[in-house]
């Protein structure tokens, strides 16, 4: 818990607990420098440096487990179980993105310039996401969100001679900056109301009743707008489909899992630390009560519940009408945010475990589905559902792997997605949010229709018959992602334990 942490001035020894992040920053700078010396069509130097850096950061993150709880860098950053989990996840996502970008025509094609820059930016984004997961102060919250956003803007517009890519980038910049402006305003009000910038001290000030209720509500809604934009929850999702469709597909794959997971990490830390006080809620009010006591005036879990229902319903219903697979997956990712928000508003350790487990599974299966789109775009030059007609005869194994990802995204057994959804829904029912569980289940049924549209095109629509050979690197990474999607559906105990330990070490939700 935070209360046991000593307040400390920054010192160089803090960096010992900040190794993965430091590695990623150094990787970014080195890869950028290496780009200056890269010759030829493929920038091998930046690629190898960025991939190696992500893997070293991953190793450092794993070896630092169990992390924490430790407040470092002048209490701007806290390293605990939650941060420990995400600093394993983000370098992993970064490494996978770098790997499949290497063979992607959209990133490495002849028209592209500054290819080395792309790999450097992935490392920088991984760094930003790690900081988002460990921010413990309003300043760090704002800076880390902005670092990830600014990197995203550049990556979305990476294909700078393409109308679609630059348009996506400009839309992203405008929506992103507006919501960051709204969030900054909310943060400033929060600072004024409590006089503090650290999450823990803000909670202490709120508990002391120093803040005006209405102003606090306004500040919270503004901050939620900024974080909601990061995870693309429904009133703040407008940028999402356009950016996902316009950006190069490897970048879309990264956007659909990385910043989203980082946004959830930050939301969990911010809301569970400032608006929730560790207390015996469970003992006092029966089994259906949350693990903490809500601080502040508003019944904010109900607000999030409404957000969750709107998000998943909108995402699923609009996804039904899509014919472009990237756009379809964009709406489907919005729907998944809705499911994840269900776990978020439970305010329990079990709810958090379900979220983290689902994020892990979601990262694997969604990266897999996007990698399929990339691999086929390289060969077919398109990403409409109709492009996949007859794929089961042209590339049977690839079609089968996509089937696994689709089943997992729907949440059907025997896949990882099923286990993830099972934990989420079990916790929702345990806490007596029955109506929410019903809406969630109905939504899963709706999602079956559009995922199966892709399956139908692959298996039942006749198309070309000539065999299709993918890039060997793409096939390898596809197998690397499809295997855990299946395996986690059958044997998931070690991963569940990993997630449980992360939540047990979370500094915010004290027992």
């Amino acid at each position, binding site marked *: 818990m935070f209360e046991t942490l000593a307040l400390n001035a920054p010192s160089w020894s803090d960096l010992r607990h900040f190794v993965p992040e430091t590695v990623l920053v150094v990787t970014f700078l080195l890869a950028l420098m290496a780009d200056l010396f890269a010759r030829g069509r493929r920038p091998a130097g930046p690629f190898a440096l960025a991939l190696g850096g992500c893997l070293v950061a991953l190793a450092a993150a794993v070896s630092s487990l169990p992390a924490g709880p430790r407040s470092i860098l002048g209490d701007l950053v806290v390293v605990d179980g939650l941060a420990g989990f995400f600093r394993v996840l983000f370098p992993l996502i970064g490494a996978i993105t770098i790997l499949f970008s290497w063979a992607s025509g959209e990133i490495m094609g002849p028209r592209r310039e500054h290819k080395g820059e792309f790999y450097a930016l992935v490392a920088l984004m991984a760094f930003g996401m790690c900081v988002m997961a460990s921010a413990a102060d309003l300043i760090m919250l*704002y800076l880390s969100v902005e670092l990830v956003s600014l990197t995203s803007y*550049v990556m979305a517009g990476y294909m700078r001679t393409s109308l679609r890519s*630059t348009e996506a*980038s400009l839309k992203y910049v*405008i929506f992103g900056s507006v919501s*960051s402006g709204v969030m900054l305003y909310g943060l400033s009000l929060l*600072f004024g109301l409590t006089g503090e910038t650290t999450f823990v001290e803000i909670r202490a000030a709120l508990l002391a009743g120093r803040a005006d209720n209405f102003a606090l509500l306004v500040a919270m809604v503004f901050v939620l707008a900024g974080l909601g934009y990061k995870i693309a929850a429904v009133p703040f999702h407008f940028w999402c*489909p*356009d950016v996902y469709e316009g950006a190069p597909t490897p970048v879309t794959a990264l956007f659909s899992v990385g910043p989203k997971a980082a946004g959830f990490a930050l939301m969990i830390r911010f809301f569970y630390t400032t608006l929730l006080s560790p207390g015996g809620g469970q003992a006092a009010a029966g089994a259906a009560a949350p693990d903490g006591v809500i601080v502040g005036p508003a019944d904010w879990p109900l607000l999030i519940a409404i957000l969750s229902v709107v998000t998943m319903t909108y995402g699923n219903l609009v996804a039904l*009408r899509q014919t472009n697979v990237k756009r379809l997956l964009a709406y489907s990712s919005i729907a998944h945010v809705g499911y994840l928000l269900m776990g978020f508003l439970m305010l329990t350790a079990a709810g958090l475990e379900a979220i983290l487990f689902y994020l892990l599974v979601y990262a694997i299966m969604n990266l897999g589905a996007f990698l399929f789109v990339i691999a086929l775009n390289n060969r077919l030059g398109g990403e409409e559902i109709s492009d996949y007609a007859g794929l089961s005869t042209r590339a049977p194994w690839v079609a089968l792997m996509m089937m696994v990802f689709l089943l997992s995204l729907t949440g059907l057994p025997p896949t990882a997605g099923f286990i993830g959804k099972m934990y989420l829904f079990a916790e929702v029912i345990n806490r007596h949010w029955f109506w929410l569980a019903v809406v969630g289940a109905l939504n899963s049924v709706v999602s079956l229709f559009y995922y199966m549209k892709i399956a139908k095109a692959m298996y039942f629509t006749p198309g070309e018959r000539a065999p299709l050979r993918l890039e060997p690197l793409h096939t390898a990474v596809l197998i690397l992602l499809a295997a855990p999607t299946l395996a986690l559906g059958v044997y998931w105990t070690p991963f569940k334990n990993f997630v449980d330990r992360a939540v047990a070490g979370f500094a915010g939700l004290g027992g």
Partner: protein
Amino acid sequence: MTIGLTHYLVLATAVFLTGLSGVLVRRNSLIVLMSIELMLCAGNIVFAAFSRWLGDASGHVFVLMSFAVAAAEAAIGLAILVEIHRLRRSVNLDDLKTLTE
């Protein structure tokens, strides 16, 4: 009449709403980017005013940080605008219709 905290907050709200309405109403993306800067500016005014009022320097630190962020945001936004202008000869938001359902 003395200039107090309330005046600064009212000023900030006015600046924020000016920026927000600029974003919503104007169609020239250069103007929209400028309006966004106004919104960030409103947050900075609130931070600086509260920082002074509370006697707590962390608000000032926040303002410095958000200056840097705003500059980076403007730089990236403008760079993308330049690129879009090269491709389309227009920076009007209504012309950006390649990505619609």
